[in-house]
């Protein structure tokens, strides 16, 4: 789920306003975009790459692709994602918010069977500083995504961006950023992302940015307990009232489930340092990395 500069990237929904804007940014940054999809504009060119009628056509007729990034409205995602999976995609980045959950489960079941790694839905994507990015992240902003040795994962794109800024302000840099998305059912979980960053070359510490709701942080804590690299964590939503969805469909405390306290204690027991505010990240890295 960490997109590399050598990966060939397809953009489904390339001709839309956001698709166009972010495709251009990705190209400028170094993402190797080999094509786009829009069934109504097949055979044309957009952002300097060929537009295909489907992901299957892109695989068969063009330069092929490894990863597809979807700029597709909610009710179109299931078919578009199935097209990419059936075409043989190794990874999907699904940015769309408000996709019916049963459609998400359908796509994830097919992806699992075909060995396709899905990031999202409802993610801002990922950044591999100095190489490429996939999604809508301000990778090109050097105050935020300077290359370095700290791996970062986040359920939230905006908060993940802020944490990366704080890390860079403290004199460190980012080896890779993985945004996993704010939905309750997603392809790449917190544990998957922490595992990938732990194994990512050039990563000496991992910063985990979670939220209230669900049990993904508690699950990831089991993996963190066995890690030799230091882990710093921030969990958003400690001040949120119970029983309300805090903007993200997955960010809700129900009864005693998904609470800040449960996540904090699981992570601390696993040896992670849990910070009270994101601006403490620099001090924690200094203490744990030296």
């Amino acid at each position, binding site marked *: 789920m960490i997109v590399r500069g050598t990966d060939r990237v397809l953009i489904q929904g390339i001709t839309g306003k956001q698709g166009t804007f972010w495709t251009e940014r990705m190209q400028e940054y170094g993402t190797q975009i080999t094509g786009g999809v829009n069934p109504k504009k097949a055979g044309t060119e957009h952002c300097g790459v060929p537009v295909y009628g489907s992901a299957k056509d892109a695989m068969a007729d063009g330069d092929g692709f490894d990863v597809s990034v979807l700029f597709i409205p909610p009710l179109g995602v299931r078919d578009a994602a199935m097209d990419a999976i059936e075409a043989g995609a190794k990874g999907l980045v699904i940015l769309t*918010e408000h996709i019916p959950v049963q459609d998400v489960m359908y796509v994830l079941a097919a992806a699992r069977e075909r060995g396709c790694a899905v990031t999202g839905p409802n993610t801002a994507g990922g950044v591999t500083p100095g190489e490429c990015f996939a999604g809508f992240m301000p990778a090109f*902003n050097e105050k935020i995504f300077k290359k370095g040795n700290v791996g970062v994962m986040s359920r939230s794109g*905006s*908060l993940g961006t802020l944490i990366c800024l704080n890390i860079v302000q403290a004199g460190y840099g980012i080896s890779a950023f993985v945004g996993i998305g704010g939905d309750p059912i997603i392809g790449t979980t917190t544990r998957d992302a922490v595992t990938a960053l732990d194994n990512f070359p050039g990563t000496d510490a991992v910063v985990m940015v979670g939220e209230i709701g669900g049990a*993904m942080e508690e699950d990831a804590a089991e993996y963190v307990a066995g890690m030799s690299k230091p882990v710093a964590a921030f969990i958003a939503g*400690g001040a949120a*009232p119970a029983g309300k969805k805090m903007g993200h469909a997955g*960010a809700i405390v129900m009864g005693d489930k998904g609470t800040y306290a449960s996540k904090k204690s699981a992570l601390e027991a696993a040896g992670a340092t849990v910070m009270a*505010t994101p601006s403490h990240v620099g001090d924690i890295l200094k203490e744990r990395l030296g």
Partner: protein
Amino acid sequence: MNFEEHAGKPVLAEHGIVVPDGRLCTTPDQAAQAQSEIGPVVVKAQVPTGKRGKAGGIKIADTPDEARAAAAAILGMDIGGNTVESVLIEGRQTIAREFYAAVMNDPVSKGPMVLFSALGGMDVEEAAEQDADAVRRQPVDIRRGLEVAEARAMLAGLDIAGLGDDIAEILVKLYGAYRAVDAELLEINPLALLDGGDLVALDCKFVMDDSGIKRQEALSDKGTPDKLTGLEAEGEAKGLKYIELDGDVGVLANGAGLTMTTMDVVRHHGGVPANFLEMGGEAYTKGTDALRLVLDNPKIKSLVINFCGAFARTDVMTDGILTAWEELEPEMPVFWSVHGTGDVEAVAMLKERLGIEPLPDMDEACKAAVEAAREANR
């Protein structure tokens, strides 16, 4: 979106699961009339929450007068913060056994999960605590659906009065209903075995996936909308997620995670947030509406605006807010932190149009807003 019992049961009935004959009544006289048509009945409060029985919201009635009295007692009752506005009158059944059946979205297996327990009528989690094997779980490959053989297999070895085939059939129907209506939870508790041998759904809990509402328009009209405060409803009408809280520091940020964090940091510095309001994602062009909404809360004494732009461009958000600010000219201490996509343009805009510079980071902005609110309260 939650559905009350009377709105959930037709979903079961449409998929071939038997439910009792029932009438929805909003007055005691209607309840008396319904009783005279049905015979001995149960009068049940209709609220989008559980524990109605414990709250006194379920009564039996054998005569029209008893039904009138029961409805009069229940209508207007407060159950879990909901005022009872209607009662469901259903024919009373003689129950031999009670079971539990449900289908829900499972974040661990990332697919549908079918649940069944021979210990119906009680909270399924309590049942599982009493006996781990009491609640059977069957994950489903959503591309294939629940097959009868799978449903039979999950019931193997349970004490279900030799009804394995009948219950398996009901589970398959329940799964079909769950799929058809974009449920995140569809639950029958109890699924009752009547003295005559019929299996009947005596209660129904249905929660629709909020992201499924757009393709379930006709049915979603029958759901119970979330209870919103005036400001929350105003936010919803403008396409902004606003949650009213009890503090005095207004919060405006982009993205759910960053907004929650801004609230957390306000609290960390000793303040109390007045609201959650995020204008990230597709709402990032709505700065003008967002500022109006935050300022409409009479409790706020200061405001922190915290942007860290990825998809949401900070220059666009800042421009929207400044437009409203210039129009409203509020006497409100405001503290900004602006980073990410479009930040150079946004900071220039702040200097030019508001004559201020943002604080270096979110912590400084939150701390200053907490201090200003404290000052205003002195």
